[in-house]
């Protein structure tokens, strides 16, 4: 039996639960001997105090022998709005979770990208939405006139249409969508001050969410992935394949007008600048490369171990908002040692990754 519940805002339903109260109540009341255990568990669940926290879920119910098996997967609550080429947010609501496609490519691509990112966060890290509590995923498209940017405004991702000269638009790239939403996860996890090294870490971790979401959606292993951010968003007039490369920072584009990709891949090439909040989109190349080194050293699906270490380092409470590269490296080392063991393959690979980009040196890491 397949059932999908779509609790409305006014409907009573439970928190963690994923399983709605009415279903628990039915199970609790069941006298069927085969359901004795489930019935008892349901009564206990209903008795436990819980906060009102709506989480949408899809339920998969099946009967295995005498047991009722309930598998629940949370589902997203997406709202896409259209700024209609103004700079007013949020704009007009054009698509909610249960609405059909709008026919507008930007709105529908944004909607789909929100869904892919939600699915990735749940599948890889069991995180329900950006805030970990099933919060709505909000997007605005068609922001501004020929606006060449996509950004996170603290509560929603906002997409311009591009100017048609450099960018064709942004919603076509899942790495861009997941990058913006990654900023939301980072903020919810305590944040990283958006300047200097902590800002470059903020950018880098958002890039990691970006590429991992795409790899997850495509079923790609670390060795098969492009590790490119924003592939395909440049117009044909631009000489470049993407905005950033995590395999080889500094090689994504080399164009007459845009210049050359300025990202360093090693601390010896760290760029001191007052532009871009202290080069947050430039020096992110260094932790980006460290993540790529770790993921390819461990192999397999990058989110399973490398991504998990980064995610736990971000959300584990040990990272301060002003952390620099070395401080983040230490938290990832501690996380790997705790999760996989001191001198485990993972712990050793994390150390090698940060050593490889010059954030920790060999002597200091012993």
């Amino acid at each position: 039996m397949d059932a999908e519940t779509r609790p409305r805002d006014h409907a009573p339903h439970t928190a963690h639960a994923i399983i709605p109260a009415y279903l628990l109540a039915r199970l609790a009341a069941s006298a069927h001997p085969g359901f004795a255990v489930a019935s008892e568990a349901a009564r206990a669940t209903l008795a436990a105090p819980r906060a009102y926290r709506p989480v949408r879920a899809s339920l998969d119910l099946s009967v295995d022998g005498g047991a009722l098996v309930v598998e629940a997967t949370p589902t997203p609550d997406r709202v896409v709005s259209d700024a209609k080429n103004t700079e007013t947010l949020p704009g007009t609501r054009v698509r909610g979770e249960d609405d059909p496609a709008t026919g507008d490519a930007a709105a529908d691509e944004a909607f789909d990208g929100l869904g892919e990112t939600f699915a990735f966060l749940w599948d890889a890290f069991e995180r329900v939405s950006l805030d970990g509590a099933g919060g709505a995923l909000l997007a605005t498209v068609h922001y501004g006139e020929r606006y060449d940017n996509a950004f996170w405004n603290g509560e929603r991702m906002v997409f311009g249409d591009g100017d048609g000269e450099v960018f064709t638009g942004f919603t076509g790239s899942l790495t861009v969508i997941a990058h913006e939403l990654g900023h939301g996860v980072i903020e919810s996890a305590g944040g990283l001050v958006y300047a200097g090294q902590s800002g470059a870490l903020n950018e880098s971790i958002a890039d990691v969410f970006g590429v991992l979401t795409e790899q997850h959606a495509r079923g790609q292993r670390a060795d098969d992935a492009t590790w490119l951010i924003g592939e395909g968003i440049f117009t044909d007039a631009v000489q470049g394949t993407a905005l950033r490369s995590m395999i080889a920072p500094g090689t994504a584009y080399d164009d007459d007008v845009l210049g050359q990709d300025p990202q360093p891949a090693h601390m010896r090439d760290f760029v001191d600048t007052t532009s871009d909040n202290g080069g947050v989109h430039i020096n992110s190349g260094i932790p980006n490369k460290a993540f790529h080194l770790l993921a390819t050293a461990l192999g397999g699906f990058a989110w399973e171990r490398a991504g998990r270490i980064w995610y736990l380092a971000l959300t584990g409470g040990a990272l301060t908002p002003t952390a620099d590269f070395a401080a983040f490296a230490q938290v990832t080392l501690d996380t790997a040692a705790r999760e996989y063991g001191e001198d485990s393959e993972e712990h050793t690979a994390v150390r090698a990754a940060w050593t490889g980009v010059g954030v920790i040196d060999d002597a200091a890491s012993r």
Partner: protein
Amino acid sequence: MPHPADDPTNDDDPTTAAADLSVSVERSGGFAGLVRRWVVTVAPPDADRWYALIDACPWPQAASPESPPTIQPPGADRFCWTVSATAARERREASLSEQELDGPWRALVDAVRDAGASGAGSAPPPLSPSEQ
């Protein structure tokens, strides 16, 4: 910014001095992290219009690129703007977040971008077609 022609200490021919006015805009940051620059070197017939745009901006209240603002606007991947105006004897510079780029700042930046789209720029086009 004093118009050189109004400056009693200015010994230069005002026409020549006015030709020295230039306004540049640098946009960094954004999701792409690309740096774009637009520069306008103002030709004398248009100097008054440009001085009006420049003088309308609250330069003293703006942060400088060397000492960026300490309070961070929320969010990520917003553009960062640096605007500078240089005349014969004076240079002004302001560092602005995207949220601060409003009112007179927006008018000045839009004018520079429209005029200096090529990145080089000599005489700016009229600010509006009606002024042609």
